């Protein structure tokens, strides 16, 4: 009960439009003063939460993405996907999903995926006769893959808070991510197949030469994710090391192969990555203050008692939590949801014997939904920023993708193996 009141209060404070980190920090700080009589522990909590080697994976992966974008390594990604897939029904839509999937494996950011791919793909789809909702939907839906397909900033945050293996969580996102991408693509094909007279004209299949040229143009954009993720899978790198090696490789490719990255670009990339990370980690620090107070008030333990006294099973508990997170996802952004809910849920996961990696993947798919469920959905806003039009056709367009994500969430609840199989085969676990 106390928890529900606290959560409701917190959501209200965040909805006042204060910067999220300040809202969370002030709310947590006030509770701390009420509960403990002083802010004496504040410095130690913040320092302890930021002084974590594993977290540096986030700025390093961000840096890698910046090097690849500013170095123009990823510029041809959409063109390549289009050349390879254009002969399929709904070929442009399928190509957009494919480009989003690969970009997700480079950027670890859903907003960046929707922004980068959408800026090229949306105008082209509309030029070819796709309806606006259809074009917006595929970018909005495909873009959400950014946080599920590794590397993924939100996954690193979850893993650090939950004390789970980042590498295993990354690998657990691969199969569900590819499965969802396939369903997105099938939806694009089916929508065109049954569009009747309104169907978009299909394009001729590309010749072998065209395909090879396209693949060569995007060679590095396609191989770098394989290097980074493969290295982690084979146990060569930890997640932080993979981020460092990936950023260095992207830097070298952009400087030596493409010759597109000058010292000024490197500097700007580092400044951008530093600011983005500061923004994220300030929320992390503020959420730590909040969850410190919750722990002091023994709220997580109360929930464990509540859950065990009602004899809730794994699935019932997960459905309840996913429902709560879905509702939170309509109003809050992904980072705060992860950081607010995870410390509360963790003790229950342990009590019920739920694998935190499985839970992490369920959480990511649910947060993908949060990115496209109104009224607050970052991907909706991103597409609105690209198109500078009204938001209604965007919301209409992402609906089928939201339905697919919901179905995916249900499937993952019923068959955890979809997520857990790949990490179970990792080397050097």
């Amino acid at each position, binding site marked *: 009960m106390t928890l529900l009141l606290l959560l409701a209060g917190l959501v209200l404070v965040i909805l006042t439009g204060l910067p999220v980190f300040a809202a969370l920090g*002030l709310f947590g700080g006030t509770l701390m003063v009420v509960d403990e009589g002083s802010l004496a522990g504040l410095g130690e909590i913040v320092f302890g939460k930021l002084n974590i080697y594993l977290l540096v994976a986030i700025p*390093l992966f961000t840096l890698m993405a910046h090097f690849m974008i500013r170095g123009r390594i990823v510029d041809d990604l959409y063109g390549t996907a289009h050349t390879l897939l254009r002969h399929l029904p709904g070929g442009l839509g399928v190509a957009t999903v494919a480009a989003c999937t690969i970009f997700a494996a480079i*950027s670890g*950011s859903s907003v960046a995926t929707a922004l980068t791919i959408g800026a090229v793909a949306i105008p082209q789809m509309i030029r070819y006769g796709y309806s606006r909702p259809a074009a917006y939907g595929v970018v909005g839906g495909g873009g959400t893959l950014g946080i599920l397909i590794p590397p993924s900033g939100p996954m690193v945050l979850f893993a650090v808070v939950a004390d789970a293996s980042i590498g295993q969580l990354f690998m657990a996102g691969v199969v569900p991510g590819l499965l969802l991408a396939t369903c997105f693509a099938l939806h694009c094909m089916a929508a065109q197949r049954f569009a009747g007279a309104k169907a978009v004209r299909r394009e001729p299949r590309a010749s072998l030469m065209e395909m090879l040229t396209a693949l060569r143009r995007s060679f590095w954009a396609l191989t770098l994710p394989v290097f980074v993720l493969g290295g982690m899978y084979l146990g060569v790198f930890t997640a932080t090391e993979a981020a460092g*090696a990936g950023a260095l490789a992207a830097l070298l490719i952009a400087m030596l192969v493409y010759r597109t990255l000058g010292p000024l670009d490197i500097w700007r990339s580092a400044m951008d990555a530093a600011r983005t990370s500061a*923004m994220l980690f*300030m929320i992390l620090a503020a959420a730590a203050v909040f969850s410190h107070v919750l722990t002091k008030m023994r709220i997580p333990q109360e929930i464990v008692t509540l859950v065990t006294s009602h004899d809730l099973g794994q699935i019932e508990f997960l459905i309840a939590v996913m429902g709560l997170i879905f509702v939170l996802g309509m109003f809050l952004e992904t980072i705060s949801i992860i950081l607010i809910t995870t410390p509360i849920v963790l003790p229950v996961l342990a009590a019920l014997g739920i694998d935190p990696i499985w839970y992490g993947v369920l959480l990511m798919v649910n947060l993908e939904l949060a990115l496209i469920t109104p009224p607050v959905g970052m991907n909706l806003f991103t597409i609105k920023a690209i198109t500078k039009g009204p938001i209604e056709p965007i919301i209409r367009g992402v609906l089928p993708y939201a339905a697919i994500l919901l179905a995916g969430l249900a499937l993952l609840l019923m068959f955890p193996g979809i997520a857990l199989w790949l990490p179970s085969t990792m080397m050097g676990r």
Partner: protein
Amino acid sequence: MACLCLVGTGLAAALLLVSLALVAWSVMMRYFLNQPIPWVDELVGYLLVGLVMLAAADALRRGEHISVDLLTDRLGPRGRRLTAAAGQLAVLVAGLALLIGGWQTAAFSKLLGIYSTGYLAVPVYLPQLLIPLGGLLLAVAAAVGLLRMATGQSPTSGPAEPGAGGLRP
């Protein structure tokens, strides 16, 4: 203020590039020469604290900290100015709390003579001083934002980027 923020972010960017070099170097030493560098993990953790604390103020100046503007967007210009001012004020208070709380923590560590438990064994108060420094920068940036608003300007300055926030997840 813009200048101070840029110096902060510049330093943060330098810390990030140093972290990149350290992590990459350490991987190579471990992988090729089987000689991992034992102090890299600890140092990179401290650098991360510095990175966050030095760049947070600039992110504020550029309006890059996430906020949920679902409700405030529907307010009139006056209401929006009011919530923007409340936002700067909230950051001012949060910055001061970091300044004071962080200073106390560092002072306490120095008093007790606590050293880090890692390979480097540095006096813990040194990296801990980054917290009050970041709090100070944030508080100053927020105060400047409020002053800008008092003179009728927008609280944020600096280029507004398309999609705001760059590679935010």
